[in-house]
């Protein structure tokens, strides 16, 4: 088991390195140099050239990537913060420390001051949504998979399919019209600003609702398919012919087997909820991680983008590890010694 975990941890590190390198390479193609972005549109070409030289921005890609890695690991100071750059970039943590993601050229702030707050906001949103998606999709999936083609299955399937196929912005606009304009119970934007007159929980209701509506139907469909398959397996017949009632058969024999296949899908929703909910964040002006990622990539803010990528990839590989461990827990056949 320890060996398995060590192997997986190493794999995770390698994945993160590859991903960060890829992002670095792709940013090469975004228009505008680091120097130009740092100095802003009003700097002269001369100033830009000077800074480029100081930053040694013409070095080959691998060299610059290693330098970035060095800064991150705290091996070398961040060149952008060097006093002679004339940028006046200043991280209160210092220029050289472990976990230094550099300076955000977009926000003109240390990246570490930008991302963690955003990540926390997103975690709240994603956590609440996930906490609702899991039980809802399991209930819907199990109930409709119990009797394929039955009345209940058809009814629940219609709900799931409709909800999943409504785009996030549409349901967002719809809910806003309903609960903000026609029946003003909730705020229309969720900037998480306590001074807006709306409590923080009330600001979270609509974004969470939009996410749940968009996502749970899809997962429920996955669980349904798996449940249908499981209900046809002979061991379910064994359970029924033991004299168990439907409830005992579901909870005693069907549920755990039916969750094995959709388990990964369920965990993948965490990744989606962390980085893929830009639309919802835009609709509600929610200060989340997805918007940060979007803005950074539009601007070509390499430092923020790299940091955000690393965080996203870290979450992805961690959920995968959790997925594999959960898999083993659910299915004794694939347990490693």
């Amino acid at each position: 088991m320890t060996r398995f975990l060590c192997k997986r941890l190493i794999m995770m590190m390698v994945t993160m390195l590859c991903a960060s390198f890829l992002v670095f390479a792709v940013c090469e193609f975004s228009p505008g140099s680091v120097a130009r972005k740092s100095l802003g549109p009003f700097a002269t070409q001369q100033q830009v050239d000077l800074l480029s030289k100081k930053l040694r921005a013409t070095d080959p890609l691998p060299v610059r990537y290693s330098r970035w890695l060095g800064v991150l690991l705290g091996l070398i100071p961040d060149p952008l913060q060097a006093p002679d750059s004339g940028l006046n970039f200043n991280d209160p943590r210092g220029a050289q420390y472990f976990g230094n993601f550099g300076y955000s050229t977009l926000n003109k702030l240390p990246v570490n001051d930008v991302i963690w707050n955003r990540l926390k906001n997103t975690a709240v949103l994603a956590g609440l949504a996930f906490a609702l998606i899991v039980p809802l999709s399991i209930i819907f999936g199990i109930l409709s998979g119990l009797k394929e083609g039955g009345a209940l299955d058809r009814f629940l399937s219609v709900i799931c399919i409709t909800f999943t196929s409504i785009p996030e912005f549409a349901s967002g606009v719809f809910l806003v019209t309903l609960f903000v304009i026609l029946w003003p119970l909730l705020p229309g934007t969720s900037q998480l600003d306590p001074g807006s007159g709306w409590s923080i929980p009330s600001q979270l209701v609509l974004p969470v609702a939009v996410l749940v509506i968009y996502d749970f139907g899809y997962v429920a469909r996955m669980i349904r398919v798996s449940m249908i398959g499981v209900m046809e397996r002979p061991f379910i017949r064994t359970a029924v012919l033991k004299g168990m009632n439907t409830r005992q058969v579901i909870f005693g024999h069907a549920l755990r087997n039916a969750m094995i296949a959709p388990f990964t899908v369920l965990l993948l929703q965490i990744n989606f909820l962390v980085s893929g909910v830009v639309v919802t964040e835009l609709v509600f002006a929610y200060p989340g991680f997805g918007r940060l990622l979007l803005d950074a990539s539009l601007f070509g803010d390499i430092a923020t983008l790299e940091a955000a990528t690393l965080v996203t990839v870290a979450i992805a590989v961690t959920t995968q590890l959790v997925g594999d461990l959960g898999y083993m827990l659910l299915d004794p056949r694939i347990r490693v010694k």
Partner: protein
Amino acid sequence: MNMEVRNAQRPASQLDLSNGIPCTAQEPLLQIHDLRIEFRGKDETVVAVPGLSLDVMRGESYGLVGESGCGKSTTAMAILGYLGRTGAVTNGSIRFDGEELVGASPRQLRKVRGRRIAMVYQDPMSALNPVRTIGAQLAEVPRIHLGTGRAQALEMARAMLRDVRLPDAGDMLKRYPHQLSGGQQQRVVIAMALLARPSLLLLDEPTTGLDVTVEAAVLDLIAELRHRYQTSLLFISHNLGLIAESCDRLGIMYSGELVEEGATGEIFRRPRHPYTQGLIACIPDVDSDKHSRSLAAIPGHIPLPQERPQGCLFGPRCDGFVAGSCDRVDLKPDEVEPGHQVKCARWRDFSRREEAAVVVPDGDRDAGDAICLTNVTKLYGTSRGRSLKANEAVTFSVKEAEIVALVGESGCGKSTLARIVTGLDQATSGQIRLADRNIAELQARARPKKLLQSVQMIFQNPDSTLNPSHSAAFSIRRSLIKFGIRKGKAAVDRRVRELLEMVRLNPDLAERKPEQLSGGQKQRIAIARAFAADPSLIVADEPVSALDVSVQAAVVTLLLDIQRANKTTMLFISHDLALVRHVADKVVVMYLGKVMEQGTVAEIFGGAAHPYTQALLSSIRSTDPDRSKAAHIQLRGEMPSPVDVPRGCRFATRCHRKLGICEQEAPPLRRLSSSHEILCHIDPTAGQTVSDGATRSADITREPAND
């Protein structure tokens, strides 16, 4: 302690029996009357069982026999009210212990299922929940039905596991189904069925798919437990030979109805229905080899429910069919004598037909060796640098036009050897001489065309040779063209037709896709394909074990005929010893990759000298009801892993005649005659005679042992 637990919750059924035998003896425990079962599809309704009546008495073991698809499982499921959403009982009644089960409420059914009627399934692996421990799955039964607490339920499960003779019951409770062997899984399913002390046990092909030795042990166990718990059995099987010994009465089922019913001995001694006679003739008998009798086959196949003929359902396959009497719609069962019913218009006209004693002239016994294996060893590397010995120093030879059977439990290395001979795999060392070449380490792609052509293989599962997207004849044609057996389209087509005729297939089937053919038809195509190459050696790996018995007989007879006509040498791999006796000239018995004994059919079946062979032979069910009470040697435990081959004699862990030296030293090879040799420390020629040595051993368990 165990007995207390058992007695404490021993339910009423036990008491019923002890004080109720005189008055309830006449009333059957299970009474099926005029049962009609239909499956409603989207556009048609299938009548799986049109009208079935049978009774199972208290304490009786009733065998329901018939080819697959005749409605046996459907009947069992109907008894338990479990026909799925499409199935329904549309007529008749099923009375169990005085209670009507047709139309019973779900609540009523739940009280019967698992409690008063329990079931043992064909495929134990899939019948058990893969993600829950054995203990949890067993403990459920007393918890649901007897309201037992968790700890006590587990204690009962443990006691029951001991009763089904599973080693280390405590540890077993914590294991998962995939960690057990097939035989152990079936014991678990049996334990599960018996936990609530049901009065009726439904066994649906409980040993199909298990090795012979395991099968024998499971059948012994069922017989023993049945007496101990006084359970009635409804024993379902397609194999008449198999259940002859276990059942008091038999019902022969054909296309959803009983065609004959009677006491087991009576059915075997005086079968009246042509179908029953055919089934009996299909059973390869251990007492006769191929030189004295040929297997009779029942031609044709069971009609689909939609295409049942009028009158006698067996009519289209019956030689005795006479229009006017056999196709009368009002055909009724007739009483041959009290307790023996037959549904045939003409049973009085024929008594049992003697099978033609086909005497096959002995082949040329002085023929040279066609293939000769010397010290063939095959190692597979496993993780952590250990090696798995699939074959070790296997030595034997096959003469031209001879059939040598390789027998042994699954996992003993038979198929590996077959793959090496055919070049699908490569030996690690040793020699295989075929046509003056050593082919032991020559894989198929390195073999010249001539060699490839001369060795052909027939697999257990014909699907592995037939391409599902091409017609059946395609593979035959391809073989002809690839090896240049015939040139030109016309010549090839003619030969394909000849080959199809040779395997007695209607040439119209040639253009069908494999999925439109039955298992037997596909295997015939596979045989035609193998013989299309004009091979000198055929390797047949369990060629008929996936087929129904009645089809098996036909395919084996066919294979033997073609082999004899073409003078082909054959390596016949099988775990079915009765069949081997019928087919082979010579037998090679393997255990854990090594040859334990080899000899002619007469030597092996007449006087097997090796303890392992003796155990294998004693596990064969006899079809002769008068002989069936002989002692069985039960092999203890499981075959060890081929990674950890026991030192000394590899059979020592399970041997019933083990000597002190056996676990220390490898046994010597003893030659008993020019063709007979064994690998054992016991010298059969010295001291005591071994002709019937089995019965003397202390470790033999006799049937219904101590109760």
